[in-house]
C-alpha cells in the first residue's frame, strides 16, 4: 500500500518578528511559531495534529498552504517546492490545496448566499458558468448533506453544523488533493461533530483527499487519523501511526495530553488517576533551554535543561523527541 506522498514538509520554520518603536521599528525578538518541522502526508491519508493552543499548529498549516510564507524550509507538493513559487505560479496549484476553518461563521461572507460561497472558487478558477455552475453547486450541496433548495440562503439562516457543511462543500468545489482542517469541530455540538466527522471520512473514501486534521480533541483525532503528530512550542514532540501512539505514547507531553481527556464513563473516571500538567505553554519568544518541555515535564532530569532532544525513530516510524529515548547522540 505504498501510497504517493501528497505533501511533504522539510525543516520548516516560521518566525514572527517582534518589533518595538513607532518610527524606526527595531526587531527585538522572534516568535518561533514553527521551528524545524518535517513530515509527509500520503494520498487519502489523515495526519492528526494535536497540541495546546499557541503551539504553532495553525501557523504550520498556513505555511503549508502558503497562506503564510515560511521563514525557511520546504513544502513539496506535486513535485514543486511551494515556498519557491511566486503568488502567480501558486494560483493554479491552490485549487488542489484547500482549507476548512474552525468557525464557519467567521470564515463565510455574511452577504453571500450559500451558492455564492460554494461557487466562488468555481468562478475564480474559471471552472464553470451558467447552468453547469448551478448544477455543480447543487451537486456539492448534496454531497455534504444539504438540500439544493438551500442554495439561496445566507449563512445566518444555517445552523452551526450546516455552516460547517458549507465550509466543507466550498473546500471540495475544486476537487482538492489536500485539505487542512483547522479545528473544524470546535464550534459544534457533539452530536453534530459526529455528523461532520462521518462526512469527512466519507469524502476521503470517495475522493482520496488527504487531510491535515488539527484538533484539540484527542478522542476525535484518534477516530479520524491514520497518523498523529504532537506539537509543542513549534516542534514535533512525537509522531507515529495512530494505533501505536495511542497504545504506546512515549513523550511525557503526549502521555499528559492523553491522560487529561476524561472518559465518558463514570465507572472508569471514579478510579482513574490523571497526570495534571503544571503551568502553561511558555512564550515562544523565549522558549526554555534544552528540551522546551522541561519546565512542565514530570519526568525531567538534569540533562533536560541543557540538551535539546532530536526527533528520532525508536522503531517502525515511531518518532519521539525526548532524552529518555535517545540512543544515538554522539
Amino acid at each position: 500500500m505504498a501510497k504517493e506522498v501528497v505533501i511533504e514538509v522539510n525543516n520548516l520554520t516560521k518566525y514572527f518578528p517582534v518589533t518595538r518603536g513607532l518610527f524606526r521599528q527595531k526587531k527585538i525578538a522572534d516568535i518561533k511559531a514553527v521551528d524545524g518541522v518535517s513530515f509527509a502526508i500520503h494520498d487519502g491519508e489523515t495526519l492528526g495534529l494535536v497540541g495546546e493552543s499557541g503551539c504553532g499548529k495553525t501557523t504550520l498549516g498556513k505555511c503549508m498552504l502558503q497562506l503564510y510564507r515560511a521563514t525557511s524550509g520546504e513544502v513539496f507538493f506535486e513535485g514543486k517546492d511551494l515556498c519557491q513559487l511566486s503568488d502567480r505560479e501558486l494560483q493554479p496549484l491552490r485549487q488542489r490545496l484547500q482549507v476548512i476553518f474552525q468557525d464557519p461563521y467567521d470564515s463565510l461572507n455574511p452577504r453571500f448566499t450559500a451558492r455564492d460561497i460554494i461557487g466562488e472558487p468555481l468562478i475564480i478558477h474559471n471552472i464553470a458558468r451558467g447552468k453547469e455552475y448551478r448544477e455543480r453547486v447543487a451537486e456539492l450541496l448534496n454531497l455534504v448533506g444539504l438540500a439544493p433548495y438551500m442554495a439561496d440562503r445566507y449563512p445566518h439562516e444555517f445552523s452551526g453544523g450546516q455552516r460547517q457543511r458549507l465550509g466543507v462543500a466550498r473546500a471540495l468545489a475544486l476537487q482538492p488533493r489536500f485539505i487542512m482542517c483547522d479545528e473544524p469541530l470546535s464550534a459544534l455540538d457533539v452530536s453534530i461533530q459526529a455528523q461532520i466527522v462521518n462526512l469527512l471520512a466519507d469524502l476521503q473514501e470517495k475522493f482520496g483527499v488527504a487531510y491535515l486534521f488539527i484538533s484539540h480533541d484527542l478522542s476525535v483525532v484518534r477516530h479520524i487519523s491514520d497518523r498523529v503528530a504532537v506539537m509543542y512550542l513549534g516542534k514535533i514532540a512525537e509522531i507515529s501511526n495512530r494505533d501505536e501512539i495511542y497504545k504506546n505514547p512515549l513523550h511525557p507531553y503526549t502521555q499528559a495530553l492523553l491522560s487529561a481527556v476524561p472518559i465518558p464513563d463514570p465507572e472508569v473516571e471514579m478510579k482513574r488517576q490523571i497526570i495534571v500538567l503544571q503551568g502553561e505553554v511558555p512564550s515562544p519568544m523565549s522558549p526554555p533551554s534544552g528540551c522546551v518541555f522541561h519546565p512542565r515535564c514530570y519526568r525531567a532530569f538534569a540533562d533536560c535543561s541543557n540538551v535539546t532532544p532530536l526527533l528520532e525513530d525508536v522503531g517502525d516510524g515511531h518518532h519521539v523527541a525526548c532524552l529518555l529515548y535517545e540512543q544515538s547522540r554522539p
Partner: protein
Amino acid sequence: MTALLEVRNLKTYFNTQDGVVKAVDGVSYDVNRGETIALVGESGCGKTVSALSILRLVAEPAGKIESGEILFEGTDLLKLSGDEMRKMRGAKISIIFQEPLTSLNPVLTIGRQISEGLEFHKNMSLKEGMQEATRLLKLVGIPHPERRIYDYPHQFSGGMRQRAMIAIAIACQPQLIIADEPTTVVDVTIQAQLLELIRNITKELNTALILITHNLGIVARYARRVFVMYAGNIIEHGNALDVYRYPCHPYTAGLLTSVPRLDEPRKTRLLPIDGQPPDLIAPPIGCSFQARCAYSMPQCQREKPPLLEVAPNHYAACWVSQKEQRPWQKKSS
C-alpha cells in the same frame, strides 16, 4: 434531609421579534449540600438561562421568569426583593462563567474585584479585602499573588483568569457555586487543572456545585448525579452511573454513542444523532425529540411525555422508555 436548592417547574421565556422563546420550559432539579450535580446538553437547550434564573440575572425586559419556584435553604428566591437578592449573590450563591474576560471588569485590578465582594458582604476594609485576595489567589494556584493582585484581567492568561474567577466565586465561602462551562474555551491540560482545583475546593469547603457542561467526560469524572437537558426541558436524570450504563432516553443514548472513547477499541464509524434541536419558538407538539428519534411512534407526536421514574431514582421523559424495554440500551451482559 431537605435539599440546599430546589428548582421547581421553572419557566423562563424571552420575548423576541420572531416570537416567544421558551428557553427553559418547566424544569425541576435539586442540589444537596456539598454535592456536585451536572447539567448537560447541547448548546441552546437552556442550561445557561436556567443558571441565570437561579441568580435572577436573566436579561430583562426581553427575558422573564414566567413561573416556578427556586427554593434556596427553603426560601423562594423569586420572592426576594432586589436588595435581598444582592445579598445572596456572591455571598451564598456564586457563578463562574465560560469566558472570564467578558465577565471580569477590564478596568479594575484582579485584587479589587476579589475584594469588592468581601467589602460588601463581609464588611471588610479595602486593606483587609486585598490581603484576603492575595490569600485566595495563592489558594487557586496563581504564582506571586502579592504582585498579581495589582494586575488587570488582560494581563492574565485565559487559564489564570479562570483561576481568578474561581477565587472571586469562593471568596465569601458560598453554599452553592454554579460553574457554567468553566473550561470550554481552554485546552484539555488547563481544563484538568481547573476542574481538579474546583473539585478540591468545593470538597474542602463543602460547597455544592452545579457543573454545566456539554462534555460527557467531564460529567463522568466530576458529578455524581446528572440532569440531561433538551430543548428547554430535563429529559433524563439520575445517578451518573445509571444514566451512562442504562440511558433511558434515546437522546442521552445518542449523545453517548456520538463521542469516540479513548478507552475503547476504535470504531470505524461514529453514530451521530441526525438533524438538529427544534426551534424553541415553535417547538413541536408532543415529544421535542421526535424529529431526531429512531423510536418515535404515533403517541410521541400527540402527547408530550412526562418525566417519570423508570427505574429506582432514574427518571426519563420518553413514552417508549416508560412502557417497554429500551431498544437503545446495550444488551446487559
